[in-house]
Structures are given as C-alpha cells and as structure tokens.
C-alpha cells in the first residue's frame, strides 16, 4: 500500500499530505465493496486488550538474545570445545595413557619439541606434555567452576542479607574491610600452613575469601531494588524477609551473578598460578597453575612448555569471560525485545 500512497502523494499541500483515493482504487486494493468498507465494524474490546502480546519465557528470551550475539556464541563454543576436548584429549582417542599415573618419564625425550608422537612435546623429564596439559586443563576448570559456583552461592546469600538487613551492614562492611585490606595471600598461606592444601581446602578457602566481592556487588544491587515499590507491595501483602529476598530480589540478580561467575573463573585460575608459584598448591595432580609455574624454569630455552598451557589458559579464561559477559547481558530482561 505504501508505494501506492507515495504515487498518489502529488497534490501536496501545506501541513499534511492530503491524499484522495477513488472508490475504484480502494476496491482494487482491498477487494471489498465501498459499502462494506464504509460500514462500522462491531467493536471487540477483548481484541483491543489482546493487542501487543507475545508468548514470553524468561530463559527462552535469554537464550534467544544470547544466540543473537554471534561472537559470544563462538566464544562459548570455543570454551565448551576446549573443556570437552580436555576430556577427549586424555581419552584413548588421543592418547595411549589411561591415567595420569601412567605417564612415564623418558630421558631421551626430555624437552622434546612437539612432533607427531608428542603433540605438545615433552617436559623436562620427558613426559608427554599433551596429556599433562589437557589433564591439568580439566582439573583447573573444575576447580574454577567449583570455586565460581561456591563463591557466587555464598556471595549471593550473604549479599542479600547484607543489602536487606540494615543491622548487618556494619558487620559485613567490617568483614569486607578485613578481607579487602589484607592481601589474600596472607590468608591463603596461613591456611595452607595450618590446615593443608588439598583440593577441598583450596576450594573452601578460595570461596571463603572471594565471596565478599560478590556479596558486595549483590548488596549494591539490593540497595537499588530494596525500596522498589513491588517490594513494598510484598510487605503490604505480608511477605516474610526470605520470600522477598528469594522471590523479589534474587531473580533480578541473575545477570550480575553470571557476570561474577564469568569473572571468577579467570580469577581462580589466576589465583591458582600464584599459589603454585608460592608452593601453596597440591602437587598430586597437575593443574594449569602448576604447569605454568614449572615451565618458568625452562621456558627461555623451551618455550613450548610455557606456550601450550599459557595458550590454553588464555583461551579458557578469555572465551569464558567474553561468553559470560554476553550471557550476563542476555540475562538482563531490559535487553530482551
């Protein structure tokens, strides 16, 4: 109809374009007779009400808007590929070893550069580096994931309380100051000395010293949402604190929570490397941090020992960070159309 309109828009006058349609034209366009066209239609108020609705599901929309961001999808695919591949790479498909303990040193192969047998070369005592790197990848990603999830869980619960219960503000602020103003390394060292440094202890202590940052950002958000009218409404309707926190506030924090997760994985792997450097890491099984630390002894002469784990670490952290960021954007309903 538009082109038609344009074509007819010749008798221009001021203020508005005044068009004239002849009956023939109208009938041609609409396929209805003049009488039909110019008769009143029964008014349907329900139809009016219905206008503009669509089927909406929160998570579907999250996915939809996430999938729209092609680069983020690519990042997620890379991340997942790397993670899944860390399982495949140490499966019989790619390697002859079935367990880490089967890796054997070999004096003739030490510092071997990558070749068809040793895809990532061999380390300083001649062990296959491919297997080690992928094994470590899996290990580190799991650690990071556990810490990330744990940190976010604790952080969210505490953050909600911190933000909503005014009496607790002082205490939490003090805790924040205590954790924030003393380098985490002190705590980590003390814990390693006094308790140990098993995988479990690592997870728990990393969570113990990082949740506060999540909690802090959650708290700031809760401050934003706390006095929104819908919370007042819930209070008028007799909602308990727990209900308000879980039903009214928590759902709004999803995107922030995801963002924290996205940040915490690179952060955890970063911590891992620092802890390995300080000797605060369990050495039973290789972690990426451990490989990176070990490679520091040799990387000047044998760069492949640094490059492979570094590349994979970077790949994981960067892709997860980007994908996480995009997902966090997508989780924000303001970005749903």
């Amino acid at each position: 109809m538009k082109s038609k309109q344009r074509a007819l828009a010749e008798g221009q006058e001021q203020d508005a374009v005044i068009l004239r349609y002849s009956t023939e034209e109208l009938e041609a366009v609409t396929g209805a007779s003049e009488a039909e066209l110019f008769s009143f239609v029964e008014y349907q108020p329900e139809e009016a009400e219905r206008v503009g609705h669509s089927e909406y599901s929160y998570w579907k929309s999250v996915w939809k808007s996430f999938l729209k961001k092609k680069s983020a999808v690519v990042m997620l695919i890379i991340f997942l590929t790397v993670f899944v591949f860390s399982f495949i790479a140490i499966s019989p498909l790619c390697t002859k070893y079935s367990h880490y303990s089967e890796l054997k040193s070999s004096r003739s192969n030490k510092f071997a550069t990558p070749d068809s047998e040793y895809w990532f070369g061999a380390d300083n005592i001649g062990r296959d580096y491919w297997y080690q790197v992928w094994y470590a990848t899996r290990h580190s990603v799991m650690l990071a994931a556990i810490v990330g999830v744990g940190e976010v869980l604790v952080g969210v619960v505490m953050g909600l309380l911190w933000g909503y219960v005014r009496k607790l503000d002082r205490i939490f602020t003090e805790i924040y100051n205590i954790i924030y103003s003393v380098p985490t390394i002190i705590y980590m060292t003390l814990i390693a000395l006094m308790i140990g440094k098993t995988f479990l202890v690592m997870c728990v202590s990393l969570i113990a010293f990082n949740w506060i940052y999540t909690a802090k950002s959650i708290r700031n958000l809760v401050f934003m949402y706390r006095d929104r009218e819908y919370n007042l409404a819930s209070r008028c309707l007799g909602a308990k604190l727990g209900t308000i926190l879980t039903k009214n506030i928590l759902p709004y924090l999803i995107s922030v929570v995801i963002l924290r997760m996205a940040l915490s994985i690179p952060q955890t792997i970063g911590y891992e490397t620092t802890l390995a450097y300080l000797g605060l890491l369990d050495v039973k099984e290789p972690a990426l941090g451990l490989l990176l630390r070990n490679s520091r002894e040799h990387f000047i002469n044998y760069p492949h020992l640094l490059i492979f784990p570094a590349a994979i670490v970077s790949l994981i952290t960067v892709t997860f960070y980007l994908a996480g960021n995009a997902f966090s954007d997508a989780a924000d309903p303001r970005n749903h159309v």
Partner: protein
Amino acid sequence: MNKNEKDAILSGRERNVILSARDVEVQFSLRGDRLTAIRGCSLDLYEGETLAIVGESGSGKSVFTKTFLGMLDANGSVTGGSILFEGEDISRFKTEKEWKRIRGGKISMVMQDPMTSLNPLKRIGVQVEESIRLHQGLSGAEAKREAIRMLDIVGIPDPERRYHQYPHEFSGGMRQRVVIAIAVACRPRILICDEPTTALDVTIQAQILDLIRRLQEQFSMTIIYITHDLGVVANVADRVAVMYAGQIVEIGTAEDVFYNAWHPYSWALLSALPQLGIKGKKLPTIDGTPPNLFNKITGDAFAPRNRRAMAIDFKVDPPFFEVSETHKAKTWLLDPRSPKVEQPASIRQLSERMNQDYGSGLKHPHQDPNRVPVITVKDLQVTFGSGRKKFVAVDKVNFEIYKGETFALVGESGSGKTTIGRAITRINPATEGEILFKGERISGKISKEVDQKVIRGIQMIFQDPLASLNERAKVEYIVSEGVRNLKMCKNSAEREELVQNALREVGLLPEFASRFPHEFSGGQRQRIGIARALIMKPEFIVADEPISALDVSIRAQVLNLLNELKGTYGLTYLFIAHDLSVVRFISDRIAVIYKGKIVELAEAEELFRHPLHPYTRALLSAIPNPDPAIERSKKLLVYDPAQHDYSEDKPVWTEILPDHFVYGNKQELNQYRGML
C-alpha cells in the same frame, strides 16, 4: 509579536513556514529487528507560533522532533522524507559540522528532566555562558554579564550569586529555568520543549509555562511544545498536532482540536479526561494498547481500539481530510463516502462543561449521622534519619476516614502524602501519634494477630505500574502473593480460581495469569496491581497516585475500575494525588498537605468552592484545564510560605465549617471566616 499578528498567522493570512517536514520516516534497529517509530509524518511550522504535539508515550512525538536536531539515538535514522529548514533538507545532514549550524543557534531544545540535564560538576553560570560564547560571540566579562542577565530573565533570584553555584544546589523548578536559560541563550529561531514540566509540581509547572510564554514573546521564538497533558496544551498552544503510533492524526488550531476534533483518537483522548467526567458516572475509556511498531501496520493504527471503526480502517491508511483551512484530520470518517457521524457529546459540550459545579445531587458525608471511621489518624508524626540528618516527613497530622468514602490527600512531591499512606500500611513506622483501624491501634508494636488483620484489611495500590510489579514473576504469582503469604487457601486449584476471579474483576482475561508483567500496558499493569490488593478482600485501600504515571487514555480505565470496585465491595479509599483536577472527580473529601502538614481538609466541592488556605488557592489556580479559552485567561496565584507569621500567634487545626478544617492562627482564621 502582538495578538493581532498571531491571529493573522493562525487565520492563515500570513503563513510564513519556518520548517517543513514531509513524510518523515524514522526507523530504529534493535537487536536485529527494525522498529518504525515515525511512519510518514508531515508538518509545517509557522514562524512565531507555538505548536503543541500531544500524544501518549510511544507515539513518537519526541523522536519526531529530535530529527530536527539530528539528535536521534545512534541506532536510529531518518529513512525517508525530508525536513526543510532555511532552504536545506536537514534530514540529509550527516556530519557534526552540518548539524552544528543548526543546533543551538537555529533550533534549541529543553528536555524533560531538569535533574539530569545539567552537568553536575559545572557551575550554573558556566553552563549558561557556554551557550552565549558559542552563539552570541561574547566572551570574558561580557559573556558573564549576559549569563547573569539570562539567569535573571528566566526568573532566578539573586543571579550573581547563583551564577557560581552548582546544579545540585537548585531545586527542580529552578534547574528547569536554568535549562531554559541555556536553550534560550543560544538565541534559537525554534525552541523545542520536550515535556519540560512533566517532572515538576503543578504550581511550578504553571510558572514555567508562564515563563516560556514570556520568553517566546521577548525573543520571538517559534515553539514546539511536546506534552501528553491536554491541560498544558490548552495553556500554551496556538496550534495542536495529535500524534498516534508514529503519525500525526489530527492537526489544527487549539480551538479546532479542543472544540471540534474529528479523529476518533482525539475524541477518545478528550473525553477520557477526568476533568470532563461526571462524578459518579463512568468515564469514557480507550481500551487496549497502542500497536507494536515492530509490526507492519495496515490501515488506521487506531482502528482496533476505535469504537466506531469501519472496515476500511483496518485495510487502508486514511489520508488527511481538511476540516477547515487550519484543521485537518486523518480519518475515514471525514470521507464523503462514509456514513455521517456526529462528534461525541462530551466534545461538543467541552466549552460548556468545563468548570461547572458538580451539582448539589452529591452526597455530603458530614450530613450522614451514621458514618463510622475506618481509619483514625491522631497526631501522626513520621521522621526519617536521626540526629543531624533528621527529617520530619509528616508533622502532627490528624484526620479520620469514614467507611465507604474516598478520601483524597493532595500535595506536591515531598509533602509527606505518600509517607502518610505508607504509615497506615505499616511500611513506614510512625514516630509519634497513633493510627487506628476500626478503633484498633495498628501503629507501633502490635501483635501478630493484629498484623495479619492489617494485612488483610488494608491494602495498597502503587504509583508506578512499572516498578510496583515484580517483573520476574508471573501474574499468577503476583496476584496470589498475599494469599500465599497468609496461607488463605487450601490448595493450588483454589488459589488459581481466586486469581482468575480477581483478574476478571479488574477486567483482565484470566489467561493473563501465566504471563509476565512486562507484556502488559501501563493500565493493565495497574489493574494487576489492583487485583493483587483486591484478592485480600480488604476494607480499606491506600491508592498512592495510582494514575499519575499513566497515559491519559488509560487513566480513565483505572479510575472507572476504582469507582466500580468501591461500589461492589464497599471499599474505602485513601487516594493520594498531586493533581486536584483528578481528585475532584473521584473523591468525597480532600485534604491538602504541604510540607508534612495538612493545611486544609474539606468535602471536595466545598474545597473547590471555598478554598481558604493560600496554598490551596495557589494549587487550584495552577490546575491546567483542557480548555484553551480558560487556560489563556487564567490567573496564577503564587504561594509563599513566608506570608504566615507564626512567631507569636500559633497556628491551630480548626474546623472552620462542619467538616471543613483549616490550619492557621487566629488572625488568619478570622480572615478565612470573612471569605466564606
């Protein structure tokens, strides 16, 4: 320009077009989808006139004018049409250099929110001076002098001192004056005012409107005034353009549009005004919501909501039909082939209907000997913070609300009206005094039992339909929340039924229960909010500005609903508002509150007829009327709290007539008595 010249222009004898937009189409791309915000808009702007563009939110009125300044957001662009200004098609402008020739010096703009439109880190004077330097070529002391003069012109007292202050040291109204000073200091030919008073209190709004009118004369500007408020339109406009769904649907002089509108949408808008309603009767409403502009629209965009739509309205976009030389409307109703229709009665009678008395047939609650108070507020005081930061929001307030009445509390923002409402619903604790609900104390520490009683008995409706619903919960949950919290039903089936009934009650489809709030229009959301309160079967509802955030067309729905429910369930309302004109339509008694104190309380008509307190009178004088004739001749009263001298003669809360209370000292009371 004097009145004669203006009339000359309006009558079309000397039409000097300053800006001419033709078929402007604006599209935005949003995450891959294209939204057509302006669908072929044409407009001629005459030199020296004030054109008001009126429309609901989303109608594209702001976007349209932004194209004149090249100020569209980055994802939007003019995709069709032309805008001729001073011989150039400015819609073709690409570079900043080109736009710089236009912006400020030729066309300038005043934005809606004065709180955010000034740079918080720069001194007021410097920000004004920036315009002066750029467009008047002045510098140094001269520029400063001019800036101070501009501040003076826009009515900022003590401009020399104010020059050095920062925006946060100014009130909203003062900031808007500064913004206007900045815009006007550019000496533009055209000044676009984009809802410049929406965020301001009524009394301030009236002053700003006055100011703009004065400046227009002083600096010979042409003004485009964007607003959704027909009262404001009536006040300022020479000509009015009504926009709907990205199109202008009717354009004409103010008189044309107000007294002789022809587009069904214009009719709907006007007749839905509470000011034009008859107390105790339903307001005509517009159902539904504006169309989704992401979709392709065939025919008249208003057709689905139009009670007099013809088949052709759904099929072919109507052209403009000329009603008179100055008046055009875009509706098939004007086509000679269409059946003859008359304008609705309310439109025809607009001029007669305005400002009539609501008559004597109304009930006078004070004459009812059996009235029982539902809520009694005694010496209520609410303070926030403590010590140095202490702030008294409500200061020794007394009133009673009787069963079955609608009690209105009117005041400007920050007056404490909302706080009173929240004190009654126990959101804000009362610092002193007490509140009784059916004779039982509900303020301070109360037993769990009483608490439950309060939750069931007193419910609240909130101002902002966006903020008052939890967007991450389904309607079902939102509506049933109170039922869940108080475990008022045995199983989920029962609950579901309650929810569906409540939805039906407020005129929503039961199937909406499974949807999320953001799928609904403002009016629908507000109705969800009402359903949520209603499901508790309350006796008393605090309605905190339930319609002030809604578009005109939707207000009527909500007001009708509230009135209807009151009849059905014998509800009692505390209706909090800042707008006296709405209140007059809905309420039985009105209390006027100023800075935490109730200054006057009376039956609605009594208050309108005999306003005593100077603040009430100022407030009444500032109400915008959707009638150009009245608006143009009205006289504004300004309230200055300094006029009271309470140093010796202490004020008291006095019942000056039966059920007419006023706050004043002896001398004032005597004076008031004289006025009766």
